[in-house]
């Protein structure tokens, strides 16, 4: 793991990291620091030389205000570094203890940025920085990471592997891309599954239709598509989804515009009421998080502002023990994944919540969420969350937690009603409706249908 630090950062962090005892245990932790001032020009220099902290700081300021650094450097201004301990406690969830959370605050004149110093164990062997050949979110190393998440989830997560009790079931139509042992195909086929009597592994696609009409299944081209579809007539997002499906070794893919007859009201009414099954039973939901329509694709070249994981180590002045931390910009999940256009769409909400696993292809990195865990390429061993948030995310929701990703549905969770099943369920439903009502919908008549898959699960 790359823990490069410049001398200034190393000294500053070391002198504010203390060795204390907590009974028998040694407790190594940051304490509030004094301001540490360094010239902007120096920080830019050490950033270029590869200091993880300086690189992060320079990059963040650049993306916030492109000309800030240039002006500040010209005026001979300085950057102020400071470690701040924020106490965190919540009186409502009564099992919580107060905790000390260290932050690194960095400011230039009036602008301030803030990173959580997230403690990690040193057992992370993998270098999670950006390597050559890793410049795209469709690169081999991205797939290797995602594959690890998928394997871990399929082996370890009970909630993610349980399916609704329908027995054997497959969506009425699926796109067959051929056995995964075959080379990457040039044509795929639309298949009907009515005679199958078995469950199959398939992926689904979550995408924005946007202003571009995607390639659609119509009554007139049904038989044509069942004979075969050349991949190169399909829009980029569909092509990338086919590649990802093939790359994960899965034979079937479900895409709404190709698996529901778009000019048949009857087919639409029937199929759109089956979303709880279609998404709930997929192996993996591929989310075109960075695309506003079907031409955008899943895979993107990472922007220069993406630095990968930034690790730092701090060596004890008394015994040389090394403590490891990762710099965590706490807005990343929200800014890069949650607020992407795809996740503001009403239909997409149930696709995301119903599918056991969603792999989000965002602009700079992949995001993973399943019913039990979250990852991103920057945090490949688990996306961090604060203690309070962890309790809320893990708030028990028996009956739905093995059918839905419930972690966003526990705001206002209250230990006072942890044993009250009905109240817990109504809390989750109310949170769901509140989130949902903020989403955008093209056809107002879809307001109830677009959430009907989740509604059917709550009704069970």
């Amino acid at each position, binding site marked *: 793991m790359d823990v490069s630090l410049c001398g200034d950062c190393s000294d500053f962090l070391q002198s504010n990291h203390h060795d204390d005892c907590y009974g028998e245990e040694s407790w190594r932790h940051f304490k509030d620091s004094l301001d540490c001032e360094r010239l902007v020009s120096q920080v830019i220099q050490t950033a270029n030389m590869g200091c993880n902290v300086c690189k992060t700081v320079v990059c963040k300021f650049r993306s916030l205000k492109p000309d800030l650094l240039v002006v500040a450097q010209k005026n001979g201004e300085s950057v102020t570094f400071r470690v701040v301990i924020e106490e965190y406690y919540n009186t*409502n969830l009564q099992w919580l203890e107060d905790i000390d959370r260290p932050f690194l605050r960095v400011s230039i004149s009036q602008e301030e940025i803030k990173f959580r110093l997230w403690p990690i164990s040193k057992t992370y062997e993998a270098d999670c920085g950006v390597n050559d050949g890793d410049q795209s979110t469709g690169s081999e190393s991205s797939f290797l990471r995602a594959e690890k998440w998928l394997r871990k989830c399929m082996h370890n997560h009970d909630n993610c592997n349980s399916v609704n009790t329908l027995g054997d079931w497959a969506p009425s139509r699926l796109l067959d891309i051929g056995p995964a042992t075959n080379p990457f195909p040039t044509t795929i086929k639309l298949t009907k599954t009515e005679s199958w009597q078995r469950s199959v592994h398939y992926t689904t696609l979550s995408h924005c239709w946007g202003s571009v009409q995607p390639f659609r299944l119509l009554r007139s081209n049904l038989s044509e598509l069942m004979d075969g579809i050349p991949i190169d007539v399909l829009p980029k997002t569909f092509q990338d989804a086919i590649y990802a499906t093939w790359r994960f070794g899965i034979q079937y893919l479900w895409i709404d515009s190709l698996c529901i007859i778009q000019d048949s009201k009857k087919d639409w*009414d*029937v199929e*759109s*009421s089956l979303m709880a099954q279609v998404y709930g039973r997929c192996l993996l939901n591929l989310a075109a998080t960075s695309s506003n329509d079907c031409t955008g694709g899943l895979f993107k070249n990472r922007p220069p502002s993406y630095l990968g994981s930034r690790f730092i180590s701090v060596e004890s002045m008394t015994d040389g023990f090394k403590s490891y931390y990762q710099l965590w910009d706490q807005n990343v999940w929200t800014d890069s994944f949650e607020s992407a256009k795809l996740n503001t769409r009403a239909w997409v909400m149930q696709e995301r919540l119903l599918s056991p696993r969603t792999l989000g292809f965002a602009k700079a990195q992949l995001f993973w969420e399943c019913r039990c865990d979250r990852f991103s390429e920057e945090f490949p061993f688990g996306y961090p969350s604060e203690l309070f948030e962890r309790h809320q995310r893990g708030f028990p929701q028996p009956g739905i937690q093995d059918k839905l990703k419930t972690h966003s549905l526990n*705001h*206002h969770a*209250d230990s006072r009603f942890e044993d009250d099943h009905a*109240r817990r369920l109504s809390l989750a439903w*109310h949170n769901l*409706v*509140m989130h949902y*009502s*903020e989403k955008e919908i093209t056809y*107002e*008549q879809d*307001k*109830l*249908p677009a*959430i*009907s*898959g989740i*509604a*059917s699960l709550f*009704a069970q």
Partner: protein
Amino acid sequence: MNQSLEYRAPSWSWASVSCPVKYLPGWIASPEVTVIEAEAQPVVERSQFGRVSEGYIRLNGKLMHNLTVAPYHGHSYALRAYGSESHSIAAECTPDQLLGPADVEPEIFCLPLGTYIETSRALGDKLYVGLVLVAHEVQRRGYYRRWGIFKSHWGWFGDTDKQAPNHRYTNDGHSTIVLN
């Protein structure tokens, strides 16, 4: 707070408005209403959770009248007893749709729901909450639709001059009304 032109859901449902909705983070203690039945009619018979063509809640409760509403500040309206001095506000009301300058003030009714217990705070002041209703456009005895909600720090629901008379309820029993 926009109601759409096309029918989407009954007025008491979050699905009838096209703006973000908020639930109060808590629950109602000592409820003042009893739901007798609630139903919604699906447009497509087999998609039970899809579109609906109508829906109602039949309930027993205490209907209050002789009340007026007027804009107070921001999106908040003041609910006052009819003919009372302007200072005595009975409750603060949030309409689902703001009255336009040309809109005639509707004849409103109040349906107290109970006292509200907030999750995120320790037990403090008592807060009474309820629905503000208007009679249904299609005049039918005891039929109402939701117009907004009200919150009040004191319970004035015992006041006899504000109790709605019998003909404001449906025929089929004591204190029964239907919300569409």
